[in-house]
């Protein structure tokens, strides 16, 4: 592995922290956050000076479903309460084309959303063309992120980022949705992407292999200027990059985030107290998910289905990895479990 000698390259460079605690965290609690929970955390994050607070169902606008989980609150309710709680922080939302539509974007715009992120699987950037074009016409700041990015080469990611900029994205980046990366993987990808675009580059980490903070620092050192992180790492499986760890580490190696340390630690305490039964941990199943390169959000449904069908959830994860399941393909879990159990429920067994 190449040395990630951050101290040599980092100067007084600003990093924008993007906080999807109230969106990605939903994956950890079956999309069940209520209005008071959203309000409490949004107020605390706003007070700490977190620049962007993203809210929504775990898969974004319009994604409440049996496939991924039905949200307790509607998009309207989530947007209303979070908008109301934010004074300085920008309100962000996330949408996957195919899950949400332009109607959902219009609704978010009616709620005065400041920043919209459009996500696609890492090789499918063209799915975002129409929605990014719509946001550009509406004059809404629009970023684009490539999910499950470990499934594409650095060169491919760079190409897709360049296309997303052509479609109208004013920030582009990658999600390590399976928590599969090691720092050198991130360095290589972010470097390629920064060479291909002249807009801010985003990195969104997951902690399945305990690498989320190190990967985020590697991303910053390679030129990323927007980093995603969640309070207490609140997120699917092993969780996301832990916000209140990342920020002081960034400051220590010479980046500026503009976030107040005590305010941040207070917000993280609020998150632990109000949002989650327990902070995410790198448990056995999350390690397997990271190794297999399968979306961390599959953890809950994999455990549910495996228990029901009497199969080893680790086998399910490795088989999903072999089938190259992308985020959103939760319906494959049942088939994989049935196949592992050796059951023929179909009509051509």
């Amino acid at each position: 592995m190449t040395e990630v000698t951050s101290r040599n390259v980092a100067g007084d460079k600003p990093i924008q922290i993007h906080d999807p605690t109230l969106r990605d965290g939903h994956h950890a609690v079956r999309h069940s956050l209520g209005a008071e929970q959203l309000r409490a955390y949004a107020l605390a994050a706003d007070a700490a000076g977190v620049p962007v607070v993203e809210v929504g169902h775990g898969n974004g606008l319009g994604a409440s479903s049996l496939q991924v989980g039905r949200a307790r609150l509607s998009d309207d309710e989530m947007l209303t309460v979070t908008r109301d709680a934010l004074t300085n922080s920008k309100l962000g939302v996330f949408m996957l084309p195919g899950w949400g539509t332009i109607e959902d974007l219009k609704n978010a715009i009616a709620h005065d959303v400041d920043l919209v992120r459009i996500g696609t699987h890492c090789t499918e950037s063209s799915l975002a063309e129409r929605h990014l074009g719509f946001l550009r016409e509406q004059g809404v700041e629009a970023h684009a992120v490539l999910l499950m990015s470990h499934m594409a080469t650095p060169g491919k990611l760079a190409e897709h980022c360049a296309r997303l900029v052509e479609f109208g994205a004013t920030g582009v980046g990658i999600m390590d949705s399976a928590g599969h990366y090691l720092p050198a993987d991130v360095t290589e990808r972010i470097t390629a992407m920064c060479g291909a675009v002249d807009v801010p580059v985003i990195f969104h980490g997951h902690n399945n292999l305990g690498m989320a903070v190190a990967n985020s620092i590697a991303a910053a050192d390679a030129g990323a200027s927007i980093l995603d992180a969640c309070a207490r790492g609140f997120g699917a499986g092993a969780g996301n990059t832990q916000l209140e760890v990342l920020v002081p580490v960034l400051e220590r190696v010479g980046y500026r985030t503009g976030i107040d340390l005590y305010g941040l630690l207070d917000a993280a305490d609020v998150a632990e107290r109000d949002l989650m039964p327990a902070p995410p941990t790198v448990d056995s199943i999350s390690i397997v998910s990271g190794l297999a390169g399968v979306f961390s959000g599959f953890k809950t449904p994999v455990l549910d289905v495996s228990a029901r069908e009497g199969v080893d959830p680790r086998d399910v994860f490795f088989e999903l990895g072999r089938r190259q399941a992308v985020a959103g393909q939760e319906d494959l879990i049942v088939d994989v479990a049935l196949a592992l159990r050796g059951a023929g429920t179909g009509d051509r067994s």
Partner: protein
Amino acid sequence: MTDNDSRAVAGRLSVAVLGAGLIGIDLMTKIARSDHLDLRLVVGRDEATSGLRQARQFGVPVATGGVQSLVDREPFDVVFDATSASSHAEHVEKLAPSGTMLIDLTPSRNGQMIFPTVNRADICAHRDLSMVSCGGQAAVPILHAISQAHEIDYIEVVTTAATLSIGRGTRMNLDEYVDTTQEAVRCFSGVTDVKAILNISPSRPPATFRVAMSLLGRDLTIDSLHSIVLAAAAEVRSFARGFEVKACTVNDGEGFVAVEVTSSGDRVPRYAGNLDIINSAALLAAESYAADRLSIAGEVYS
């Protein structure tokens, strides 16, 4: 004798395909096999597209210039619209005056929705038929059958298609795909709370076209669901041979049915059952119309 009658004299209806993308070119191959349809023109965007090249190699006359090139020529009995949802209404407006039957493969939600195993009888009463969407063609026959026998509160349809089987038209029409598929499920199941989702998979080898349906209904039982689904699937196989049930479960009032569709060949690879099922349904609609127009004794398919 009207114009329409004179066109049908040869014993075959004159047909054009508007749009030379993945759908249009596979349709061309399927139409060419029909005894009752005479493919006279394929219209593409410009000469250089691979679709028009394939059509020319196939020996079919080609044209560019969109719907106008159809208006400028003889009236066609049947035009398959394989362009984009936003263009379909204009195509109807331009072609309807000459009595043309339009069969719409875009998710425009314009015409009468047709699912051959569900409402084939509606075909001849309309001149603008909507084939809805590939996911709709795979899901509605199953969901219609289930909702006849059970009290269903909520339906969700999750489609997965291989990236190579999704052309630019569909990529730009994702919202229409979602809306139109939802509308069709509502219409043919009588259930109002419906959600459609589309995933695109880049896996290698490519993922077979797949539609997973989840249903909430307190009276669902596995025995009942299983027999209804297998019977409906057998009917769909009468025109889409590669239609298979991959999973069928019931847990705590939640039914789950997954089907996969492989293509029977023609211009599309095996995994691209999405193109095959909607095109096969469209062809069946055209042949039903031809059977009616040409007064062929008996049905084209039985």
